[in-house]
């Protein structure tokens, strides 16, 4: 059985206790998207500002467990200032790390994802241990699924 130390790494607890980019943005220009985890009732509200295909700002509010909150916090830090293309690539790699393989889903999903280099993840690599706790994968991916939705809305806006 996987130990708790695999799940609750120090970086995760740090992001949980002091979440980055918490708050709200004015809509518009920002896009506001809500995500729900029907399993536990957690909810996340993601505010995303995209200009010239760059994520210029991101804020997060809502409630959740340490895994969903720290994942959202790390995600926000990782995507701020990145191009939409880079963010999409990061989403795919993150989901692959969570053992979610969507190669057959979506139009852009056909490309194969190569082996993931944990170094490219920075702090996000700390979430790797979640895979050993299958019920918690939904917690870790809640903010990322919400981000996917926000990017879609940004593309059509």
């Amino acid at each position, binding site marked *: *059985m996987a*130990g*708790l130390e695999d*799940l*609750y790494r120090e970086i995760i*607890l740090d992001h*949980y206790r002091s979440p980055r980019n918490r708050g709200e943005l004015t809509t518009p220009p920002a896009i506001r998207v809500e995500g729900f985890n029907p*399993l*536990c*009732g*957690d*909810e996340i509200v993601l505010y995303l500002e995209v200009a010239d295909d760059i994520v210029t700002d991101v804020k997060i509010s809502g*409630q*959740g*467990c*340490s*895994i969903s*909150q720290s994942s959202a916090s790390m995600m926000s830090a990782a995507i701020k200032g990145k191009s939409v293309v880079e963010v999409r690539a990061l989403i795919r790699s993150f989901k692959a790390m969570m053992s979610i393989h969507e190669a057959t889903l979506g139009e852009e999903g056909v490309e194969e994802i190569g082996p993931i280099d944990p170094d490219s993840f920075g702090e996000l690599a700390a979430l790797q241990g979640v895979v050993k*706790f299958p019920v*918690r994968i939904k*917690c870790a991916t809640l903010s990322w699924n919400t981000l996917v939705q926000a990017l879609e809305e940004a593309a059509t806006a």
Partner: protein
Amino acid sequence: MASLEVQTLAVEAIKADFPLLSRVQAGRKIVFLDSAASAQRPQAVLDAMDDYYSTTHANVHRGVYAIAEEATRRYEEGRLAAGRLINAPNPSREIILTKNVTEAYNLVTYTWGRKNLQRGDVVVLTESEHHANIVPWLMLKAEREIEIRYLRVNDDFRLDLSNLDEVVRDAKFVSVTAASNVLGTITDLAPIVAAAHRAGALVMADGAQLVPHRPVDVQALDLDLFGYTGHKLMGPTGIGVLWARAEILEAMPPFLGGGEMINDVRLDSFTTNELPWKFEAGTPPIAESIGLGAAIKYLEAIGLDRIAAHEAALTDYTLNRLTETFPEIEIFGPPAGADRRGGVISFKLGDIHPHDVAQVLDEHAVCVRAGHHCAKPLMRRLGVNATTRASLYLYNDEHDVETLIEALVDVKRMFQ
């Protein structure tokens, strides 16, 4: 050492009847505090089902050979036990066996509801219902535009009955939980049943959380319909129980169609079987009925009065230990010593998320539930997304509670 003031059950001996409770997880013995979600099974239930499959299995109500007749008799004995447990007046006709109690409520809304409710007709539920007793009604509302009114929950976690007559006025059907799977409150059904009957409505109670823990008498309660589920009272999964007065069932159209539920079938028409088989289409849950019967025998042998007394003492003990150890704990339910309170204890430990609480408890082999407990309207009323829920049963004792407390101390150490 911790102990209860009054010992009504020999819990050590009871624990030994449950094979799963001797399971060891990473060097620790399982402490099972999630019986409100599903209880464990005593060996007697497993043996009864094994015995049926190894000696008596055949389809029921069909064969004339000895094994088939025996299978039919044992299946029907499960039905009689299910009726006896709630003092149903006419169990051989009025007890319908379903796949779970959720199906029982869907049966009621689909058949009684669609036959009797039109646009604007009023159904009364409570804010503390399990989704099983809300969503089928909401489905009917989407189809029929019925009106659903709710009895609200007060700040003392009990139903607000101050405007009862007003809420049930002109209602056709009132359906209320007999015991909450979140708050631990046991509903005072008498005034609700009386008011509903004065208004001319039928009354159903959801006994899923009551029947495993307290003696129940549907006649004394003057109910019209009642449901409970097998797996929460130590029976198998895959079986639920619906009781209703025969004249109500007679007037209801059938639910699922197929074998067993018919009297005659022609190319362009059919007639239905008599009660209760009219509502049991297809091969029924035979082994499950036999297992349910064995679980009921086990409950009866120990005695629901004694189980209730044990749970009441252990609930008080748990509430006291939780509140004295964790001053910041918020308990969503009546306090220690309260009347009409069962052993379901929902709480929040400061800001620590229930998911994280349950995860660390699992490390201590303590099994609790974290989440919305299939009662989202109630969670909204309580102002939370999720709670941690520990629920007690006859096989729990103060040692289990102490392990819970130790594990919660560990949770705090980790998240603060």
